[in-house]
Each structure stands twice: as C-alpha cells, then as structure tokens.
C-alpha cells in the first residue's frame, strides 16, 4: 500500500511539470521579441550600441511560440535546460550551483525551525500563562513582524561588523580556493556535506560559520509561527480525553506530554513546515542579497527581472519537483505520527 502510494505520487510529477512549463511558456506569447531581448541587453547604457534587429534574429526571438516551446522541450529531454543570459551560463549549471546553496541554508533553517519550534512551543504550552510563555509570545510577535532583511542587517552589524564572528558570503577566500581546487570533489554542491565527504572538517566549519546568520534570519518568521502553532496545537491536544486518561493512569507529566500529546500535536506543525518550503525559496532573495549568499532566491529574481525564460522555466521545474517531494515526505510523516491515517 505504501509503495503504491509513493509510486502514484511520483507518477503525477511529469504531468505537473509539463503543465507548469506550458503555462509559463504561454506567458512568452504575450511578450514581443524586443521585451525578451532585454535580458541580452541588461544595461540601458549599452542599448545605443546594440544591434537590436540582429540580436532578435540571432537568438531566435521572432520564431513562432510553439516552435520555441517544442525546441525547448526537445532539449529538456536531452538534458539541456538551455542557456541563462541573466546568469551567463547554462541553466543546468546555474541550478546545480545555486540549488544546493539554498538547500543547505534551508536544511539548517528547517533544523532550527523544527527543533527550536517544537522545544519552545512545548515549553510555552507546558508553562501556559506563566512568565516564560508571555516572554516567548512577545518574541514570536516580534519575529513575525520584523522584516527578514532588517533582521539580517542587524545580525550582520552586530555579529560581523562589531564582533567579526560570522562573515557574509558562502565561504572565506581560503576555503573557496580549497573547494575550487582539483583535489576537492563536489559530490552534492553543499559545502558542509562536501567538506565532510572530502575529509575537510575545516571547510565544513567554515561553511557552517557563514550559514549561521543567514539561516537564522531566513527562518526567523517561520520559527516564530511554528512556536505559536506548536503551542496552540499542544494546548488543544492536552485537553483531549485520552490525555486525562493517561494522567489518571499515573503516568508522569513528562511522559504524557512527550510520548502521547506531542506526537499528535505535531501534525499541523508538519503540514505548516511543508507548506513553508516553497515560500522560503522566494523569501530567500532578500537574505541572499544581504549576506552575499548566491542561492536560488537571487537567481530566480534576477531571471524574472530579466525575463530570462530558460532560467525561469528551469527554476519552476526544479521548485515543482521539490514541492512534490516535500509533500510526499509530509504525508509519510503523518503516517509515522498517526498510524491510523491510511493511504487509500
């Protein structure tokens, strides 16, 4: 049953991606060749020197839209996502360097959200209406209200500009030299993991050092929301009859909360975290800009700004795949948390 469920889910993926690519490409039909040309002339100051008509022909921007789509689709099946004029490299290469950077940041952020959100949310529920609860409720309000880039800049000023602890960028120059050398093998594109796999713990630590601030800034509002959601979900669960039963059986409060209540309280939290993943892709652009962290957010925004359709399509396909997998993982986690959930 489980296998069937997984396969069925995965089989929907090609259909979703096909519809997604078609919808995005259909937007191209609304653009003139000159609007699409903008990505090849990024700077208004060079427009006067640019051979506009020649460039339109050179890049095939005046071809019929369905021809352009079919050519693109054919290349995708051959593993070629096209060229990104905004990134100045093949789309696949841009994604393979940008995507792991964002995944790395997101994983660290999700760890912070998951463990921090659950721990603090549990604490506030257990200490309902006490000082600790009030404090964290106030902090979560701030966390949700404060714009991410303001938090990012403040963190950078305090922890980098004043203290020099956590610099911006993805790696320090010496670490970039190591990672860029022929001796260093790129297995995943994630500097932390690749550092460990290459036996370079110094690279792992250096990468972590550069990720701490952006990961925190990135996940702050989701962490705040998760704490609140965990708190309210746990409070509701603690009022259920089976909890009273558990208590009346003589179980300790710790066992009641951790073993019985929390599991069930996690369901809405897991759902929320699952839906926050695609949102975090978009929110990454500001954090990536402030911290000089070259990830997917910045790439997608630059592609959108320049109407770089190969990059937009490639990104959309990748994010589509991520969403399908994340939803699948969320559904599987449901089953683990609540065995009564069936897949049929």
């Amino acid at each position, binding site marked *: 049953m489980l296998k069937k469920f997984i396969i069925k889910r995965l089989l929907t993926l090609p259909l979703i991606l096909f519809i997604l690519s078609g919808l995005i490409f259909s937007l191209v039909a609304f*653009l*003139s060749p*000159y*609007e*699409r*040309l*903008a*990505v090849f*002339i*990024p*700077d*208004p*100051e*060079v*427009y*006067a*020197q*640019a*051979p506009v008509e*020649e460039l339109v022909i*050179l*890049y095939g921007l005046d071809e019929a839209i369905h021809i352009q789509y079919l050519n693109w689709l054919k290349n995708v099946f051959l593993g070629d996502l096209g*060229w990104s*004029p905004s990134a*100045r490299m*093949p789309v696949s290469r*841009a994604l393979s*360097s*940008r995507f792991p950077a964002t995944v790395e940041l997101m994983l660290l952020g999700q760890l912070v959200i998951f463990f921090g959100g659950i721990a603090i949310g549990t604490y506030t529920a257990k200490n309902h209406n006490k000082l600790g609860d009030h404090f964290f409720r106030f902090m979560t309000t701030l966390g949700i209200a404060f714009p991410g880039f303001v938090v990012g*800049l403040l963190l*950078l*000023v305090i922890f*980098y*500009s004043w203290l*020099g602890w956590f*610099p*911006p*960028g*993805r790696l*320090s*120059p*010496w670490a*970039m*030299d190591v990672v*860029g050398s022929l001796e260093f093998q790129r297995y995943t594109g994630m500097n932390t993991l690749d550092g460990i796999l290459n036996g370079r713990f*110094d690279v792992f*630590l*250096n990468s*972590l*050092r550069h990720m*701490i601030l952006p990961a925190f800034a990135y996940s702050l509002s989701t962490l705040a929301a998760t704490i609140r959601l965990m708190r309210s979900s746990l409070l509701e669960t603690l009022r259920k009859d089976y909890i009273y039963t558990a208590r009346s059986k003589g179980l300790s409060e710790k066992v009641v909360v951790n073993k019985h209540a929390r599991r069930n309280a996690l369901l809405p939290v897991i759902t929320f975290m699952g839906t926050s993943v695609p949102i975090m892709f978009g929110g990454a652009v500001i954090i*990536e*800009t*402030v*911290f*000089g962290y*070259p990830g997917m957010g910045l*790439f997608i925004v630059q592609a959108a*700004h*320049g109407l770089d359709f190969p990059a937009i399509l490639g990104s959309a396909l990748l994010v589509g795949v991520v969403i399908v997998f994340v939803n699948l993982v969320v559904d599987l986690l449901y089953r683990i948390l609540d065995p009564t959930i069936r897949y049929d």
Partner: protein
Amino acid sequence: MRSWKNIVLIVLLLTLAFSAGVQAKDTFVKASRNLVDTLDPQLMVASATMELSFNVFNSLLIFDPEDRDTLHPSLSTQVPSYDNGLIVDTEDGGVRIEFPVRQGVLFHNGSELRPEDIEYTIKRALLIGGQPASIRLLSSTLLDKGSFQVLVDEIGYDEAFEVLDQAVTVEGNSVIFHLPKPFVPFLGIMADGGASLAILNKEWCSEVGAWPGTKETGQEFMGLTIEETALHDKMMGTGPFKLASWEPGERIVLERFDEYWEGPATMSRVIRRIVEDTSTAIMLLQRGDVDWIDLDSPADLPRVEGSPGVKTITDIPTAWLMKMNFVFDITEEGNRNIGDGQIGPNGIPGDFFSDINVRKAFQYSFGYDVFINDVFLGSALKPYGPVLIGFPTANPDNPQYYYDPEKAEEHFKKAWNGEVWEKGFKMRIPYSAGSLQRQRALEILKDNIEALNPKFEIELFSLPWASYLAEITAKKLPISLLGMLPQVFDPYLPLFQHMHSSGSYARDCGYDDMAREKYDVLIDELGTNYDEERRMELSHQLQLYAYEDAHSIFHFQNVANIAIRDWVQGYIPLPQPFNVDFYQIYH
C-alpha cells in the same frame, strides 16, 4: 537534551575558532555588484568584463591615463603616424597603417606573441560579429560594412572572406591594416587597453575550440553568441594577470603573471567578488575583508568617510553621459503615451517634437542644477554637449541650456504657431523601473513644465526594463532616457552616435533626415581628416548644431566615487566607470 546542547555549543565554538583568515598583503580584493558576462573579449559588453580583459590582455596601443590625447605603444613598438611613415595614403584613396610588433612578449602559456596572433585577433573579431562598439566600428572601417554578415549577404562568403583576408596582413614583423579610406579614430580603437581588441593567441584559441583561423571553418563561427563561444570561460593573454578561477556569480580570481613584458605586478593575486548589497559591501570594507568598493550613490559617502583604515576618492570623471532624447516621429498607432494624437488636453501628435520651439522650451524647462544636487548631491557634471567632458575637442564654451522658465514660456508660446500654449498638451513618459536618476529627471521636467501652464500635463510611470526596451524599439516613447558610453577617446564616436544619420540616435529618434542634410558631411570629414585644427573646427561646429537643434537634453555626465582601504596605492582613474588597472596597485 543536555548532550545535544553541549554538541551545539562545541560546534559553535569550533566555527568561531576558524577565523575568516587574515588578508594577505599581496592580495587585492574588489567588491562589485556587476556581473561578468563572458570571458570572450570580443563578445563582452559589460564594463565588469572589460575590467578583467584590461588586466589579462594587452592591445596594440594604449592611452596615457593622465593625458587622453596621447597614445603610447603597447604590443606595437611605435604609434603609427604620417611622420614616422607608418601611416601611408594609398593610390586608391585608402590608408595603410603599419604596427611593428614588440618582440619577446609572452602569453600566459609561455608562447611568444607573433604578428599572426594580431592578424587572427582582428579577423576573428570581424568574422564572429563581435558586439562591442569598437568592433562594429572596426567593421565599418575595414570592411566598409556594419558587420561581416552584411558583407556576406551582399557578395557571398567566399568573396567576403577575401575582403577580410586582405584587410589585415602580416609583413615581416609587422601587422598591416588596409583601410579603404582614412579613419582617424582607428588608432583610438587600437588603444582600448586590451578590452574588446585584446590580442588573442591564435594557436591556443584553435586548441580550445575557437575559430582556427581558416576560411573553410569560418562560416561555422559567424554570428557567435556567448553560449556558443569556446572562450566563454577561458582567458589567456599577455597582460600582467592571468585567470586563476571563475565562479560565475560569486568571484573571479586573477594571479600575477611573473613573465609580463613590462615587469611583474606588485599584487600577486586579485579577487573580484560579487557583493549585491551596498550595506554589506561597506561592512566588508570596514572589516578589511575587501579593499575596494564602488559607491553607486553619493549618499553612501558619509557611511564610509571617517571609517578607520578607509579612504575615499571622489569625483572621478567617467566616460558616461546621460541625455533625454526627444523622439521626432513617435509611433501613433495604438500608442497610449500620446493620447488622442492631437495637440490639446488629451494628447500630442506623433511629430510633436519636430518643432524646434517645443524642444527648446523643454530644454529651458529642465532644472539641471537641481537635478545634479538632488540625485548626485552635486557630484556629477553638466555636459557641454554630445562630446563628453575630458574628450578631445570637447568645447567648454559651447552654448548651453540652463533652467530659464521665461525663455521656456517664450518658446512654448511660439510652438506649433501658438497652438501648444493655447490648447495645452498631455503626454505619458515612462522611465525604466528602479532607475532613480531617470525617475527624478522626469519628475523635475514635469514639475517645471506643468508650473508654466495648467493646460500642460505630463504623466510619468515606471516600466520594467524589458518593456521599456520594447517601447523604445517601437518608437512609442515621446522622450527616452538613454546615454552614451563611448569606448574610444575620439569625438567622432559620440558625434556619430548622436548626430549621424546612420547613428543609433538620429535613426531611432527620427532626425535622420536632418542629419543627412546637415551633419553627415561634417561627421564623415571628422572621421577622415587627420588635421587637428580642422577636426577641432568640425567638432565645435557639430557641438554648436547639437545646441541649436536641441535634439536632446544633456543632463549629466557621471563621476565615480569609490571607497578603498588606506593601504591601496597607485590607483589611476580609468575612463570606464569603476574599472581598475590592477597593475598599478601596490601596498
């Protein structure tokens, strides 16, 4: 739970223990938000790429950085001239220009520079249809066509290649250029400092998959794009630095070339690092993790001035001029920017700006000083006209327009036989989204014009660059805000661009007939006459015409401001905005 806390604490401490590392004193780090578009010098258009090319390659000549009227030899041993016999008029009305090639110059791979490399470089630039303006200019000069493709379309590939082949030849240790007619800016094109006309190594290019230099293979490489070029991610020249690594979107690293023919540079390493956010760049500079940042806005100066270890250099002249261009023949069909297409409260006709009094009225309506003070905090120059300040023959005594509401009113009252003043007008003018200087320039113009007569209405709105570009090419904008960034230090290029009937502005703004009638002859002579006095006369006359015919409001010429670590010495301003000659930098 306690063990988890301990693990997290230990990991945090360890990450702190691995410091960012102290910057080596022989490494220079520049932070910039400008991306490198390609490493192929003949396809690059971004100024960021030109900076790299400038430091990795050499060209035949080079401009004196402190005296832009003077050329020096670089890979050539002499600057050709009539006096030294290296420029000779030919019987067919053309010109033969000879460049004796310097001996003993090594490329980064150890091979020696030969005249055939120079011959190959020029031919490749023309064959592939290189996009930089200097290559297109070279094409017009040597092939008498805008591009090699145009020549092929006219006479076929075989014959066109013969023309190409004969345009540049090698004789002994010299490279000879055969110009069908004189072209004075030619030497300036050859002195772009290793930018677009960076000299490539023919053998190496062939090895890595670029055009091998033969006729048989030429057609495959015509119309080359960035994604197709084998040189997109490779650079190998004769310059003081060689490419070490390029992580697109992150950084590019250059290393000193110890066998550089002028002697090794002081810096052993140069890193050009992408930093998108100005606040982040300032913090990096203050901490010493970068040594140089470009300050896009003068408003950022107070944030760095006074920082320990940091100094600023301000008001660096650049070769970037901005103007507001009137379109004489605005497309009327389906164009919301001109309303009902009639002079009156609901629109303007497509030929609104063809009336000289309308143009002059707009010229006198613009608050030039207010704009420069408002947007640039006084840190910009008011241009004299189309020839940029700092360029040869730029005329500081050329009459100019200033904000004068009385004169503006006077001209509005004369415009279209008084109809404009009586009936009023309405137009919509977009600006490119995100461009503060464009937005502010239009706002000042709008406010001043509307203050003259309540019947005048100008509506402003922003458009994404892509849409703005489409509107320009469709001639739907009443006024476009585009500038000039000439790469050759000769008045011919900006005057050609602005005023020749084949130049982009006359053509796109609809005054090409006027250009054919009045300016083309003068500009053509400017391009072919070597007599300096006569060139001065011609240039001044054209600048006067630009004033009298008022095609554009020349509202500012950019100056650059930079902030650098105080150990950085030897910086010499280059005319391309924010480009740095790393060879001159020392600690």
